[in-house]
């Protein structure tokens, strides 16, 4: 049974959609004001306080101001959603209004009358089969199932009857659809209510995540999925540049997850969207109690903590996402204004967790600082934009999957660097791709697709088990722009080739790299797991000086420490400073090391 819609066609006809849009504009303005307020708190007040004040009172003020900033961010998010909801409601109502108007126009043209209840009265017309006199007029109503009962020439021979019936159906259809829209949006708007009070706890952000999803479902027809996912990063940049300010704001409010992770969108925009994503995702994960969510939540919290600490170089969130093993792309320094930009690709077992948020981010940060010694216009990015393999039982069992992950990762990396080139404001930015461990295999795979890694001038490979090609010159940047750091005690850089692998029981803790102790002791072999040893003369890259690293067997058993300190200016100053020079575009100044 269909409930009688409370809405009448007169009401639908007279509905002023422009008023809804006016209200939407109002919410949009509130949203923008909240965003500006948050910005002012974070950029001016907090920075000023931190730099000039100390003591408990200042500390307390910083905490309170951060909370206030988050509250404003919440206001920004919710008001933005309200604006899009109202615009979307107006858009859908207009469609029904238009359908209604067409039906009414048709009725007027035929000189039919549409009654208040939606019935359509038609005049006499045609001629009777028996006496040829015009057939009587009448009234048609919609039965709610348009088209189901075909007009029969015997039952209703008046040709107007069928037309009237059609118009009645269209009027009723528009009203019914409008009532449904009204009901649907009433529900969404009711949802978009904040809790009372000044606190915005994670639970409220969880609700906000649900709110965004609800608005997105509803607004699909209005905003469309016009986001050009299939276009090139340069085309996406142009698409974004071509939108009006209002359109951009609506995309940011409703699709922060997509805009924030879209290569080709300017860094500042991605950062703004991902600030939202971060809060929404934290809110969402808060509500779950499985281990995976807890792990991920810890990672996001750590990123959030660093963002709040306000350290230099400034952080920009270029990507945050929950898909696969998690996504996080964090830049230290603005990659759109910096002349030198480096993207660091982490390796095996990297996923969005506290370890990534602490250690991988630190690698990018150290790299940015190291490059800034030589050119202050430098930025470095920790790029977790792919699913790094999560191997747990040695390379042997996962070899095929490993290659496939590298291909997929390489594809994403190419998109990302194409985006960096597209949005960088310098005429010829200097880009460096840095692959660590399995990440170097991913960088290698990226070079083998299309014309190589877009925009990248230099490639740095550290702790590499091979990159999938046997010669540096095959990486597409010229062999004198390929730089290799390989610590003598880094077991990963001596992983034997596939046919030689034997998993040594003594070194089992070094899994996922199954390593035979005998192979490590035997330096004569320059074939590694993924091809030629990048540190070998045959490979033909430039090998830069790194620390040998702690010995393989430390006081507490086998150690993989030498594999993990290439970026660390404290543990391996030679390596970190060489990486800094290369990223700053001064690779002719590095200190070199003999081939293996």
């Amino acid at each position, binding site marked *: 049974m269909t409930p009688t819609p409370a809405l009448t066609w007169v009401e639908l006809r007279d509905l002023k959609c422009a008023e809804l849009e006016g209200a939407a504009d109002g919410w949009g303005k509130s949203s923008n004001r909240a965003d500006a307020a948050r910005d002012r708190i974070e950029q001016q007040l907090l920075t000023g306080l931190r730099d000039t004040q100390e003591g408990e009172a200042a500390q307390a003020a910083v905490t309170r101001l951060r909370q206030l900033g988050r509250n404003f961010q919440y206001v920004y998010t919710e008001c933005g959603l309200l604006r899009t909801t109202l615009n979307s409601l107006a858009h859908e109502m207009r469609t029904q209004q238009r359908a209604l108007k067409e039906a009414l126009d048709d009725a007027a043209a035929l000189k039919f009358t549409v009654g208040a209840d939606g019935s359509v009265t038609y005049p006499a017309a045609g001629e009777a089969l028996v006496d040829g006199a015009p057939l009587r007029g009448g009234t048609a109503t919609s039965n709610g199932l348009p088209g189901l009962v075909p007009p029969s020439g015997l039952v209703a021979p008046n040709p107007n009857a069928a037309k009237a019936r059609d118009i009645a159906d269209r009027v009723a259809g528009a009203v019914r659809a409008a009532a449904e829209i009204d009901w649907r949006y009433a529900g969404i708007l009711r949802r978009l209510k904040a809790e009372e009070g000044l606190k915005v706890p994670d639970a409220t952000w969880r609700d906000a995540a649900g709110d965004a999803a609800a608005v997105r479902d509803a607004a699909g027809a209005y905003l469309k999925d016009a986001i050009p996912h299939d276009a090139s990063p340069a085309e996406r940049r142009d698409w974004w540049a071509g939108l009006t300010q209002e359109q951009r704001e609506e995309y940011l409010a409703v699709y922060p997850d997509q805009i924030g992770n879209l290569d080709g969108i300017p860094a500042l925009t991605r950062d703004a969207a991902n600030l939202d994503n971060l809060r929404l995702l934290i809110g969402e994960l808060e509500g779950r109690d499985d281990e995976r969510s807890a792990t991920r939540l810890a990672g996001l919290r750590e990123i959030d903590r660093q963002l709040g600490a306000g350290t230099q170089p400034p952080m920009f969130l270029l990507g945050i996402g929950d898909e696969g093993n998690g996504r996080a792309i964090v830049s230290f320094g603005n990659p759109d204004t910096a002349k030198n930009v480096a993207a660091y690709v982490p390796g095996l077992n990297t996923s969005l967790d506290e370890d990534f948020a602490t250690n991988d981010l630190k690698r990018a940060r150290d790299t940015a600082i190291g490059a800034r*010694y030589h050119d*202050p216009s430098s930025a470095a990015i920790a790029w977790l934009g792919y699913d790094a393999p999560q191997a747990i039982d040695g390379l042997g069992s996962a070899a095929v999957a490993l290659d496939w992950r590298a291909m997929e990762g390489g594809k994403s990396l190419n998109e990302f660097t194409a985006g960096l080139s597209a949005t960088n404001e310098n005429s010829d930015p200097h880009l460096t791709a840095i692959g660590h461990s399995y990440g170097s295999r991913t960088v290698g795979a990226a070079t083998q697709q299309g014309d190589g890694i877009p925009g990248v001038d230099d490639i740095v490979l550290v702790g590499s088990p091979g990159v999938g090609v046997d010669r540096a010159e095959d990486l597409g940047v010229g062999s004198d722009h390929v730089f290799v750091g390989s610590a003598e005690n880094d077991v990963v850089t001596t992983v034997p080739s596939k046919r030689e692998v034997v998993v040594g029981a003594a070194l089992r803790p070094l899994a996922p790299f199954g390593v035979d102790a005998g192979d490590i002791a035997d330096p004569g072999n320059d074939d590694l797991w993924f091809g030629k040893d990048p540190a070998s003369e045959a490979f033909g890259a430039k090998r830069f000086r790194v620390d040998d690293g702690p010995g393989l067997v430390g006081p507490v058993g086998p150690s993989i420490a030498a594999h993990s300190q290439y970026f660390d200016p404290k543990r391996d100053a030679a390596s970190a400073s060489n990486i800094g020079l290369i990223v700053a575009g*001064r690779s002719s100044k590095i200190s070199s090391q003999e081939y293996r």
Partner: protein
Amino acid sequence: MTIVSAERRGNFLGVVDRSWRNSGYRMKSINNDPDVPAIFAQTEDGFGVSLIVGGEGQVFFEVDSPCVEKSEVAESTTKATAPTYEGMENIPRPNVRSPFWSAGAP
């Protein structure tokens, strides 16, 4: 900050190098490039000490403490007594001329 001219860079590094060696520091790594020389050393009790000549002759001194186990301690509340400039993009350039150290600088 004092301007160290390219001509005096060698003297400067020599003085530092000698002083560090006399203090028993161990040299971990050295970059001999004339433009961007660097000395990375370690004190007997594990402190890392670095001198890096960066872009435009800017000199960076850094000291870091020995590695410790990660523990749940709060961030230091003691403020640096001078700007640390760590990681900053717009670090002021040296602007104090010394008749000796700045000799020959433009």
